């Protein structure tokens, strides 16, 4: 079945530094969605990427969708303590509406 792999599983970042989390799918995706889950909270939708090669920015967050629509990345610049949480990518296979979640990248920030 369709799988989405996400790395790294854990990311410890010094406040002010940048980091990137990556997702790779075994099959071509219709779109990929990113969610953030704060400790004790529920996944909150961040963004959706649909087009091949698409790049979207939300303040310090930059999301990319690969040309082949099989991989994606989330890059955060100048990490802040508010960035703490687990970031999940979730891929939607073509002609389907069931998301396949990556394992998540749990981010901790050192002040």
């Amino acid at each position: 079945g369709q799988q989405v792999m996400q790395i790294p599983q854990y990311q410890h970042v010094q406040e002010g530094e940048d980091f990137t989390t990556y997702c790779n799918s075994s099959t071509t995706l219709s779109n990929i969605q990113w969610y953030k889950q704060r400790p004790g909270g529920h996944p909150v939708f961040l963004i959706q990427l649909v087009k091949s090669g698409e790049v979207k920015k939300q303040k310090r967050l930059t999301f990319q969708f690969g040309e082949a629509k099989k991989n994606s990345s989330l890059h955060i610049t100048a990490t802040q303590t508010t960035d703490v949480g687990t970031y999940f990518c979730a891929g939607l296979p073509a002609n389907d509406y069931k998301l396949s979640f990556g394992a998540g990248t749990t981010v901790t920030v050192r002040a």
Partner: protein
Amino acid sequence: DAMVIQNPRYQVTQFGKPVTLSCSQTLNHNVMYWYQQKSSQAPKLLFHYYDKDFNNEADTPDNFQSRRPNTSFCFLDIRSPGLGDAAMYLCATGGSDTTDTQYFGPGTRLTVL
């Protein structure tokens, strides 16, 4: 305004005692999903409803059942909870278009004693 509401937020039950979790939505979405999320893991899809059509995941135990009496409400029934069923249960809704996003409720944290 809350769009996906789950009740209760915390549920404690005894081993083997049936429990029902509820979810309601104000988005009028066709699709409602139930996920199980254990600590430090990704949400795991249990089943979903596309309108009234129930779709079970192949590896969802028979212990888990669901009902969707109308568009707005969906229930998760755990017939005989085991210790391994302690988890966060997330309800999500989405449209039927492949570009639709999923909106998650706040979750119900289930404890099994």
